[in-house]
């Protein structure tokens, strides 16, 4: 806004990157995070995570399928989206996007295929008619399954998972780098940005898995696997501490340097971002879950039911925290005028093409897709279920 004490360049009255660009790193964050969790089991052999590993992998795919939707909705010319791979300008930090994305997608799809191959063959043998045809296509017509192929599948899965960890980090760290490398933007431009993004991705990945894991088991009225649930909660606790501390240290060092940059960012933090950053992201949704998870991790005497509910609540809060963090980065950075003399305003609108309703849809669809995936790739064992 232009007022006597606040000036923004005339073109800055329009916010270029909307809430769609907030959703993209949010969704890829969950993708990368969920994948890394599944790899903990496959690569590092953390047996306790076994019950969740497949689920983590399939969730990763569900989110990945929708990660580009907000981007396409935002592009001025979505019909030219493939230009990014046809005529890439490799000087641009963004140009590798398509390749990294495809590469990662391939790894996830292959890993899922190899982990489910035996089950799919089993389903193929038991099904009839058109469903049988579908399964036949899915298994690529190969029905051989024995001890030898199973061992081979596991080996491939392990290799893919190991390979996938750096790729997942690249996928998400890369998004952080897109922001961190913009020297024109005071709030984004920091080499720490991609590290912060990777850690927040792991936090959101763990949080969404805990959240869904508990939720699905409540729906099915089954107890969760307490060991893996608590282990994930501990990891979540650890990673959220690192993520939050990194972010705060970053602000602290800018403030301590006390350059002109801080003069502007101080006003941003105390002004436009006061509620969404200071109050909500830091105080409510970071300190809150930190206290809850500290309690569930350190106090042994909490009854399991209460403990699980607490963990579940904390995971939900951290999901909101990461969303707020994405908002505060993407939108916050654009609120600062490059004239360093003021701040602009942004509200996405409720029913706009890039508004809140569409955003809510984009966040919810992957969860529905996940439900669909469960039919083809069942992620939790369901003993005693009547078929």
């Amino acid at each position, binding site marked *: 806004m232009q007022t006597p004490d606040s000036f923004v360049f005339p073109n800055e009255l*329009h916010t270029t990157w909307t809430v769609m660009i907030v959703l993209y790193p949010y969704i890829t964050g969950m993708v990368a995070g969920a994948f890394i969790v599944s790899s903990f089991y496959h690569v590092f052999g953390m047996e306790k995570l076994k019950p969740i590993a497949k689920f983590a992998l399939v969730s990763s795919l569900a989110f990945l399928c929708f990660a580009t939707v907000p981007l396409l909705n935002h592009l001025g010319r979505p019909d030219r*989206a493939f230009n990014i791979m046809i005529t890439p300008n490799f000087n641009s930090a963004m140009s590798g996007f398509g390749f990294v994305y495809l590469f990662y997608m391939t790894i996830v799809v292959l890993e899922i295929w190899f982990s489910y191959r035996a089950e799919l063959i089993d389903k193929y043998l038991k099904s009839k008619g058109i469903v049988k045809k579908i399964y036949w296509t899915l298994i690529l017509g190969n029905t051989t399954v024995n001890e030898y192929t199973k061992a081979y599948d596991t080996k491939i899965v392990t290799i893919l998972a190991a390979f996938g960890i750096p790729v997942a980090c690249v996928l998400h760290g890369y998004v952080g780098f897109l922001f961190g490398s913009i020297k024109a933007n005071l709030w984004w431009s920091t080499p720490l940005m991609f590290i912060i993004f990777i850690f927040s991705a792991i936090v959101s990945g763990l949080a969404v898995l805990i959240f869904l894991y508990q939720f699905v088991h409540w729906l099915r009225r089954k107890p969760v696997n307490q060991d893996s649930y608590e282990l994930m909660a501990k990891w979540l606790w650890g990673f959220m501490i690192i993520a939050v501390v990194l972010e705060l240290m970053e602000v602290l060092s800018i403030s301590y340097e006390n350059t002109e940059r801080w003069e502007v960012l101080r006003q941003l933090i105390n002004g436009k971002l006061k509620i969404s950053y200071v109050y909500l992201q830091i105080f409510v949704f970071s300190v809150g879950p930190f206290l809850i998870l500290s309690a569930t991790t350190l106090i042994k005497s909490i009854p399991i039911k209460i403990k699980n509910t607490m963990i579940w609540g904390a995971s939900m809060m951290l999901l909101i925290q990461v969303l707020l963090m994405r908002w505060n980065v993407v939108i916050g950075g654009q609120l600062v005028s490059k004239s360093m*003399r003021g701040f602009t305003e942004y509200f996405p609108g409720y029913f706009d093409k890039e508004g809140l309703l569409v955003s809510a849809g984009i966040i919810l669809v992957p969860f529905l897709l996940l439900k669909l995936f469960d039919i083809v790739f069942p992620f939790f064992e369901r003993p005693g279920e009547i078929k």
Partner: protein
Amino acid sequence: MDKIERRQFLKLGLYTTAGVMMGSLFAFSRTDKEIDYKSPEDLSKFDWGFLVDTTRCIGCGACVRACKVENNVPDSYFRTWVERYEIDKNGRVRVDSPNGALESFKDDNFNEAEIVKAFFVPKLCNHCYDSACTQVCPVGATYESPDGVVLIDKERCVGCGYCVQACPYGCRYIDHEKGVADKCTLCYHRIQKGEAPACVNACPRAARIFGNLKDPESKIRKILNLRRYGTLKPDLGTNPKCYYIGLDMEVK
């Protein structure tokens, strides 16, 4: 005038106008010359640069209006705009640019009696030598022409907006109607014909000077050799090619 007559009159008016328009379209579109495309070698004899003498600007906004008409700039977006700086005796600074100074400035100075210094600063794309926008464009739609103008290939631009974020000067915007990025082209269509950019033509005070930096005899080179000048945000390493005479430290 009864109804019939009025209708006939209107009809007549309509036809005459249409006739005149068609005629003039024909007259103006006739060209005996073949369009002559310059080769990259020819183009590289030029390095188009821009100079703004802030001490001459009176903030009339004629340049902004000329640019809007010449380049069909969408409402509330600007390829060029003018900023007004007012500094009072306590050192407080007030900057404004109402609607980019399209309608010039209002007489709404802040505590007029207290103002010790005031000046106008026209802004436009700096056609930076090391432009951040060219660097970040993922599809190579933003590029530098052989004669040193940073341009956008609108047939290739995907409208991602990364360049808008990367330009430190707020010179770019997304034209939502076409879904692509847009900014000042130094009126590339005019300079190819040997004409000056529209804003340069429109400025009644000759505060905007345009010319070939590679030509030692050009006006811009001569002034740059003579006067002291600065560029905007030199610390960002973009190497702007729009030079400012009389640049104040308050201007960013």
